[in-house]
């Protein structure tokens, strides 16, 4: 058997006392000097025109294949059709029932996951590299021959409906879906959420239509990462090269945003709850906007990591919460800045006041050089660690490719992190962190 890990074990010898000054920090190499490089991919095109991105790297004999289709809820005619079609891909084909499909993937210790997003829907396979040959043909089968049995749909509807009931008791679940609805509008794919009646009205025929249009005759790209077999391209060609992908043009659905007119909300969800969920949000342009990389740096200062201002003030100084975060949403069309925390019921309002103070401070005062250096170094360090491993590299590239970006975007972001000035960040804050435009919600 091969060794799982090479390691060396040493018991420390007794040594003599020596004088070191523990008050002085060791010298560091800072962000400007750390070498950072985005590993490249290898690209192939299958005979039906499907693009294949390969990331052949890694230390373990494991791999991932990710199929991304234009089949998100952007394309559905009624609520939950895209997500349900995606979820039930595994629940039966012309020749295998749901149990047989699961049995096949699980026998090889592999994981076949489905995920439905706004624009895209994905199928992803994680497996030991030695088993991929047995698995690809069955993935092709579920993407081309799924039948969506009536009974499977019934079980799914009932179980999801039950799960929804449990989730609706959680303030954080309610808060997250409501803030998105205020921000984008309930009719917009970004603001839409599931209701009891949506589950009840789901019909098999809707799934079959959606499947036929967006899977069997849809548009896909494939990402493959890990320690790859030599003939991986041939294997993928054999299973996916003949599928009818990319032949039909998909409808261009123009969904317009319908942000709510009202900005401030207080909702009562659980009478005897001990914490409230606070959400603040404001629309922000997508990744292609020139201010996006600067906003990412500013977001980090505000609430993007453990050393952020919100965390320092609201957790580490006041003890109002276990955690508070801000982030930019990863949507293709329009992004948004979100601030989110769970705080003691009786300190929600004071916590909100502190959040506004921190936002205002970013508008009023330039960030000190010291704080900005820390943020730069932290960000570069975290990008370095995020690039560690084949799946992470593929995932970053996937994000770029789906957003129509390339490595220039990556190096531009790095440059922004290294060079953006306190004055520029204050300008971004003045321009975008306008408090009157924030949606504000507390759910207790």
């Amino acid at each position: 058997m091969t060794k799982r890990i090479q390691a060396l074990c040493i018991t420390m010898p007794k040594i003599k006392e020596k004088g070191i000054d523990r008050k002085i920090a060791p010298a560091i190499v800072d962000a400007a000097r750390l070498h950072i490089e985005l590993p490249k991919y290898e690209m192939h095109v299958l005979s039906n025109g499907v693009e294949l991105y390969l990331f052949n790297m890694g230390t373990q004999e494991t791999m991932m294949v990710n199929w991304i289709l234009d089949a998100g809820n952007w394309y559905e005619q009624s609520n939950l059709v895209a997500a349900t079609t995606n979820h039930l891909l595994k629940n039966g084909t012309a020749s295998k029932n749901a149990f047989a499909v699961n049995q096949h993937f699980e026998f090889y210790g592999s994981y076949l996951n489905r995920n439905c997003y706004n624009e895209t829907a994905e199928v992803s396979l994680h497996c030991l590299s030695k088993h991929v040959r047995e698995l690809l043909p069955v993935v092709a089968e579920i993407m081309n021959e799924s039948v969506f049995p009536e009974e499977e749909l019934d079980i799914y509807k009932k179980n999801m409906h039950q799960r929804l009931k449990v989730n609706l008791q959680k303030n954080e679940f309610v808060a997250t879906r409501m803030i998105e609805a205020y921000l984008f509008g309930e009719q917009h794919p970004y603001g839409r959420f599931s209701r009891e009646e949506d589950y009840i009205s789901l019909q098999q025929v809707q799934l079959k239509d959606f499947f036929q249009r967006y899977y069997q005759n849809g548009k896909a790209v494939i990402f493959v990462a890990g320690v790859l077999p030599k003939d991986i391209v041939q294997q993928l060609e054999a299973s996916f090269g003949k599928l009818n992908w990319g032949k039909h043009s998909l409808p261009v659905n123009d969904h317009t945003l319908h942000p709510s007119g009202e900005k401030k909300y207080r909702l009562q969800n659980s009478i005897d709850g001990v914490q409230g969920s606070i959400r603040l949000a404001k629309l922000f342009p997508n990744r292609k906007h020139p201010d996006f990389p600067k906003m990412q740096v500013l977001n980090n200062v505000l609430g993007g990591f453990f050393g952020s201002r919100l965390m320092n003030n609201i957790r580490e100084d006041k003890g109002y919460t276990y955690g508070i975060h801000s982030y930019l949403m990863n949507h293709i069309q329009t992004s948004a800045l979100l601030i989110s925390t769970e705080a003691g019921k009786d300190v929600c309002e004071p916590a909100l006041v502190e959040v506004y103070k921190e936002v205002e401070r970013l508008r009023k005062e330039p960030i000190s050089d010291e704080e900005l250096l820390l943020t730069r170094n932290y960000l570069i360090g975290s990008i370095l660690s995020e690039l560690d491993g084949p799946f992470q590299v593929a995932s970053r590239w996937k994000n770029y490719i789906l957003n129509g970006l390339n490595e220039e975007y990556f190096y531009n972001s790095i440059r922004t992190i290294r060079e953006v000035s306190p004055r520029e960040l204050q300008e971004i804050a003045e321009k975008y962190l306008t408090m009157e435009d924030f949606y504000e919600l507390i759910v207790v």
Partner: protein
Amino acid sequence: MHEDHSTPMAVVNVMYDVGSRDEDPNRTGFAHLFEHLMFGGSVNIPEYDSPLQLAGGENNAYTSSDVTNYYIQLPAENLETAFWLESDRMLSLAFRKKSLEVQKKVVCEEFKEHYLNKPYGDVWFKIREMAYEKHPYRWLTIGKELSHIELAELEDVKEFFFRFYRPINAVLVVAGHVNTANVLELSEKWFGDIPSGEKNYRDIPAEPGQLAPKRKAVDAKVPLDAFYKNWHIYSRLDSRYYAADLITEVLGGGGSSRLYQSLVKEKKLFSNIECYHFGTVDPGLLTVEGKLIKGVKMEEAEAAVEEELMKLKESGIEDKELVKVKNRTEAVISFEDMSLMNRAGSLAFYEILGDASLMNSELQRYQEVTAENILEESRIIFDEKNSSTLHYYAKN
């Protein structure tokens, strides 16, 4: 020491041999509260996080019933910063009053967020108290109640530190783009002069064998009835642990597992069902947990679970099913080992268990489990006398 030059990063992992099982029953939640205090500054360094972030590093920590683990990941060029920070807080904390007061509040919010403000959040308090009578697994790592955390004083913090956080109770793992000679030198430089302290010998009461079934029913404001049944299993170091682990895979591992196929898909009694255990160092619990379909009677649901267990106890498993659960285990281990941080954490944990090299024989231990072992262990474990059952009813 574990060198891996495929990454630009380094990981420094310090694991202390102390967890919530080492707590006083009247002062529970202390090991975890203490973990928070480890970030409140040390004797020579007023702030822990900022210098690390300045060096491009990230860190976190966790406390379990058995151990407390602190880990840093940073660009390998800045490795020494991690040594400086970790060694100073092993030397001594700053013991500031403000830090204690704030972290007590933060931990109380964590308690509320995860255990009080969620439907079914209190389930594990009830199960642990029912299943354990003597062993400190009777309480959760977060603590028995909020008041225990609120009671903590600075004196308790100091005493805990000098009893448990000594080098002799710690394992240091350095991994990644580093070289052994340099790491040895840095280890001596930063950790070498910290007094090694006295080994903490545990005197934890063993849980006596359970002689009769335990049952409890509660009403709560939740939307669905839920079923929880638990059986005592083996310690992490027991050779039978591996068979017990594979049994949870047979019953609850994925969409082709026995409980899911039979009770969710065929009989439609549960909307979801799981089977798992926690891998605790001392003998732990194996749990079957499920939410019932509205309208299904608890007794009917339990009888159906028992029927599946009876099948396992009577007929065991087929070879193909055994290969499946072993393949799944091999894959889980491989995926886990993709992350440098996980590899460092595993090395530390196995060293605390007695020998870091156990990490390399783990997969072999699973491969050696036979269908007969599964049959035999399932008969021993799934004995009604060994069970603690919780019926959790939705009350409108």
